[in-house]
């Protein structure tokens, strides 16, 4: 019985363990969608009182998986298509947030833009949501054999945080 209890506790702990993750929701044209998911997020999110801050959160472009290998390759190439892009990372810097809203600087394809985020917390996890337009990051309209990608992209990120 003791072993079963330990196993159950271990299993429950594993499935409820916070895992940092970034999910990009991409709509296709004429129809459909896909998600690109990366679980290789680096950086720290700190909570001080009711405020959240982070100097830098980053994820490598090549860590995103879309469910189709060919689409992965196209996704990675597209996110680094500008000559201005010297890094294969997507970064969110100078993040400051409180009362469910915040701002940070998002860098994609070598282009930095301020983004407004919304967030909710659950335990030691925070779920961040924001929308971006690909064209604002000098990403040209993506299309492959007649199937294109909509300009507006939704991003959701789950981070564990440390309280100070």
């Amino acid at each position: 019985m003791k072993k079963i209890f330990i196993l159950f506790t271990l299993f429950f702990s594993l499935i409820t363990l916070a895992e940092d993750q970034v999910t990009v929701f991409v709509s296709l044209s004429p129809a459909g969608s896909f998600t690109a998911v990366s679980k290789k997020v680096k950086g720290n999110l700190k909570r001080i009182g009711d405020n959240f801050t982070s100097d830098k959160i980053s994820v490598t472009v090549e860590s995103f998986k879309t469910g189709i290998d060919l689409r992965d390759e196209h996704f990675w190439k597209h996110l680094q298509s500008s000559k201005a892009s010297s890094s294969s990372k997507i970064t969110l810097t100078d993040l400051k947030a409180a009362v469910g809203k915040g701002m940070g600087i998002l860098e994609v394809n070598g282009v930095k833009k301020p983004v407004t985020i919304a967030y909710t917390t659950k335990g030691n996890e925070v779920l961040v949501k924001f929308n971006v337009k690909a064209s604002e990051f000098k990403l040209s309209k993506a299309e492959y054999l007649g199937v294109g990608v909509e300009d507006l992209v939704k991003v959701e990120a789950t981070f564990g945080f440390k309280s100070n």
Partner: protein
Amino acid sequence: MKFLTFFILLTITTTASAYVNFIGHGYTSCLNCHYNPAGGGPLNDYGRVVGATAISSGALYPKDWNEEKVAYTSGFLFRKPKQNWLRTQINYRGFQLVQSPGSEANQTERWINMQLDGRVILKFGENDKFVSVLNYGYAPLPPGPKIQGVKNQTEWRSREHYLGYRFTPKFGVYAGLMDKVFGLRTIEHIAYSRSIPQMAQNDQVHGLKGHYLGEKWEMFGQYFVGNLAQDENLRMKGATGMIERTIFDIHRIGTSLTRSENTFLTLMSYSAHAKFNLKEGSALLGEIGQTSKDSKNGNTEEVSRWGLLQTYLRPVRGLYVLTNIEYKKDDVNMEDYTVRWGPGIQYFPIQRFEFRFDIYNERNFSPDSSTKDRWSYLLQTHIWL
């Protein structure tokens, strides 16, 4: 037994096959991969690449092939077409049908060449806004002597031929011989949801179809005058419509309504369906519907109901594990009903090849008794070039 073979032969084939379960790959609409926005028939270039790089297993490709190379070889004759206006395809399906397996007295088995099609597609304009599709091929006639008084009983015929024009990416019109739009176009035309409302593989009609594809909504309306290759008194004339809505970004729900009639019969069907994306290529499909069949000669009306639930689970690329549960009640005023269920495996070892194994168990239930189980299995081969 002959009738049962004939029935399965009629219903199992997938002349204009569609894979509704590919909503599990994020494709809510058929238009991404097919020239026909309602699905079925020839794949477009994108559909062929998806077939090669997402649907088919990558295990058998040479190790030095990357996914771009795999995509490149998805075209006809294993290469990328050199022009944009002409596409050709060849499609074959055949299967081994085994009924009452294991029964010394009743087991029967036979190989059936179900379909051999040649397809020619002409397409012009931005995003193929004008398409012309001709799909001509072989389909076996039912066993036994030809039916007296019915013309054009030939094994070679046009499966579909139509012209399509998309005025905008959201709206297109199609005219010619096409499948009727109704409910889930499941790959199994043996499904009660296809056979009872007469939406199976040989029920194409000449007509005009409008298609709207919005951000959340997709709608079809189709007016038809029957299959002009049939005798006039047999042609089912009428209209059909289907509306689907995307919910929670990745799932779809929809409803369909159709009415048609000829000299002998009036059919009216309606259904509701749902397609759920379970991610990573897996999907859950469901449909319920009702058909009323009004016989003009006998002045009788029969109302039938059906239900369909299918799961497609994709443990690895190229492999789909199926579960199929179906229900039908031929006459809602009677208490008899039939349940058919069974597992299946669908495997795409490499692009251009699909192998499928299905087991079917069917039983009729009534308040007083139930028939013995009827078992059968199918080994299906599908090759497209």
